[in-house]
């Protein structure tokens, strides 16, 4: 047999061996070696992901003292408390509002900018770098920048607003809606660079011939965009949708911690921030474990829907 792969259509990549017999032949005398080689990765996954996951699922059925001196089984009480708590319901709504804002505004603005960047103009390199570098900032720095821009008594933005409107006090530390919008703006801005890079790459992969053909056929720029560019971008958009969802759910943590700490009131307390506060500041591990399971559940569903539906619809024409 000689271990030679069977001939297969090139677009499918190298063929996978079928059945045990083939595997034996690929590594004769090394039956366990492949397992040994993947063992470190598996070990890392088990130790750092699976075990803590199982522990936190278990922990969600208990309440315990911070130092673990006493643990009481409470059944589903942590979950019941969670879902009957107005604070948690509020946190769910905030998270939904926050993430949809970040995803929708972020992606559409980035697409617009990427479209503008995808043309031949003088100083293109400068514009590209100027629009992309925000991604290189750490969330803490971005948070400090936005927080000081909007600082109620000393910030530039409240000053301008007050001068323009004749005395309106823009205080995001006391107005929850404004706080949410400011955090959304900061989070969107922070992610802009990342989105632009991917969308720009996607745009540059749209074959020029198609666009030219469309033009010859009499399609205006608007129509050409929706009928050709947008569908051609769908693999990139699908990927970015999921990445941005993860970003809006988890990675904005740093921004929120620096800027609002979930306040004012609970106006910017998204799920992951509430989890952190309950678990690590208030030392209520039972409730935090229950919350982590809820978030896991929500994200899994989101991921499944996205991968199932969006991937099927995405057009992979290269």
């Amino acid at each position, binding site marked *: 047999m000689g271990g030679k792969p069977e001939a297969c259509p090139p677009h499918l990549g190298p063929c996978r061996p079928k059945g045990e017999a083939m595997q034996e032949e690929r590594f004769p005398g090394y039956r366990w070696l492949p397992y040994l080689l993947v063992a470190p990765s598996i070990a890392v996954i088990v130790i750092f992901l699976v075990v803590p996951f199982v522990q936190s699922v278990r922990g969600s059925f208990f309440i315990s003292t911070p130092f673990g001196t006493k643990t009481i089984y409470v059944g589903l009480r942590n979950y019941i408390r969670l879902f009957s708590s107005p604070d948690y319901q509020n946190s769910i709504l905030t998270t939904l509002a926050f993430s949809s804002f970040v995803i929708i505004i972020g992606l559409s603005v980035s697409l617009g900018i990427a479209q503008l960047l995808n043309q031949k103009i003088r100083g293109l390199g400068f514009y590209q770098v100027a629009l992309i570098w925000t991604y290189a900032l750490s969330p803490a720095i971005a948070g400090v920048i936005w927080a000081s821009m909007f600082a109620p008594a000393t910030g530039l933005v409240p000053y301008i607003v007050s001068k323009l409107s004749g005395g309106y006090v823009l*205080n995001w530390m*006391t107005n929850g809606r404004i706080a949410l919008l400011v955090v959304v703006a900061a989070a969107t801005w922070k992610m802009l660079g990342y989105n632009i890079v991917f969308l720009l790459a996607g745009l540059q992969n749209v074959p020029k011939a198609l666009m030219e053909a469309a033009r010859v056929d009499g399609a205006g720029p608007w129509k050409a965009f929706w009928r050709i560019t947008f569908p051609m971008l769908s693999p990139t958009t699908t990927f970015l949708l999921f990445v941005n969802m993860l970003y809006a759910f988890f990675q904005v943590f740093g921004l929120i911690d620096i800027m609002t700490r979930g306040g004012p009131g609970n106006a910017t307390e998204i799920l992951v921030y509430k989890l952190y506060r309950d678990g690590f500041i208030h030392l209520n591990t039972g409730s935090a474990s229950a919350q982590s399971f809820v978030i896991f559940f929500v994200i899994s569903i989101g991921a499944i829907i996205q991968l199932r539906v969006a991937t099927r619809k995405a057009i992979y024409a290269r």
Partner: protein
Amino acid sequence: MLKKLKTKLTGFFSLKNRINLCPKHKWVLVGLAVLLSIPTVSVIAAEKVEITWWHAMSGSRLKVVDAIVESFNATHPDIELKPLFTGTYAETLTKFIASYRTGTAPNLIQVYEVGTQTMIDSEAILPVYQIPGMLGEAWDWAQYVIPITNYYSVEGNLWSMPFNSSSAMLYYNKDIFRAAGLDPNKPPTTWKEMEEYGEQILASGVVDHVYSGGWPGWIWEQTLGYHNHLYADNDNGRAGLAKKVVFNDEFGHMVFETMVRLHDKGIYIYGGPEYAANSAFKAGRIAMLIQSTSSLTGILKASEFEVGTSFLPRFEGYPIGNSLVGGGSLWVTKGKSEEEVRAVWEFLKYLGQTEIAIQWHKGTGYFPVTNAALKALLDEGWFSNQTYLTAFLEILSGRRDTAAATGARLGPFVAMREHFRAALEKAIAGDLSPKEALDEAAQKMNQLLKDYAELYGG
């Protein structure tokens, strides 16, 4: 043997031999891989007693900590103290909990005042009052400043060593007072005056807002303690685990409504959870600031105007209590060797030495914790600068014999403070009326206290 292994090793990576190497040899490779992956363990013959200290002092405070530790190590050749900055107070406590549960806890840890009950209930701590007896020493606990030790004492016994203690006071901008036609040497002493001065300053148009503050939950505790008003039942949680909060009565509602009213008039501008309001004061955009005394050094350095300090304003006609001690203290981990405890104790004694306590006070603005250091500072004329004196006089001026004036000690205190902050934010945003907001916070806090009592069987 080694050469043989080497040929096998190179052989393994060449394609031809990979196919032919017999199964027996692969175990040699496996063994080698495992051996290589074991981290090298080096054993150091240690003559010095090594002790570790986790703290939350960053920035300029970290430099003072490092200087003190360095001089301690230099004067104690048999001890090696290793300090480690472990993040904010909350992060430090979380790390300590994780490390204690895995048996890798440091010898000494700095905990903020709200974590006091958590530490007392932790079963992870050796109370400092027991240490001298354990080591066969006698120790005079009266040498420490009493309002500070009271805060960290259970039934008169000191559980943690006072380290960085602060209180809250009123800072004001004398230049703005002058510009508004007020006497720069007459800061407001009552909340009625706060309001009157506020209106006058606003009318003068010098600034858009008159005062702000940090740490809302802590300032709330200060205001209650300052008027000898209890925060929670069971003597503020000092006679036993507290069952419910008692601040949402006539007095509490009046205070809370005053804060919201001053906000609605534009006199008060909400300044966020910690030190965010300081920048507005330093920039001269507000006339007054209610903030921790530990901000004094930073404010004096950064302000280009004449800074005045004063006691917190009072509500007239209510009892007099004391302003409360905040900041942090040092806790000794249980279950370490006697040798290590002795080394830790040496360090704790060292911190109380007059010149070290003074170095700490001057470098950071935290209170000197011993009476001797206080006296030395007085003799030296340090307090002739009135701004420094205010802070210290404040905690010494009131009564110290009631639980209300000592401050609350509650299990879920951190979360409770958050609820207060949320209530204030909701009330000044107009989402809830002041009364509704405070009652809602009280109700949530009572649930936390109930949960805590359930866990600790109180």
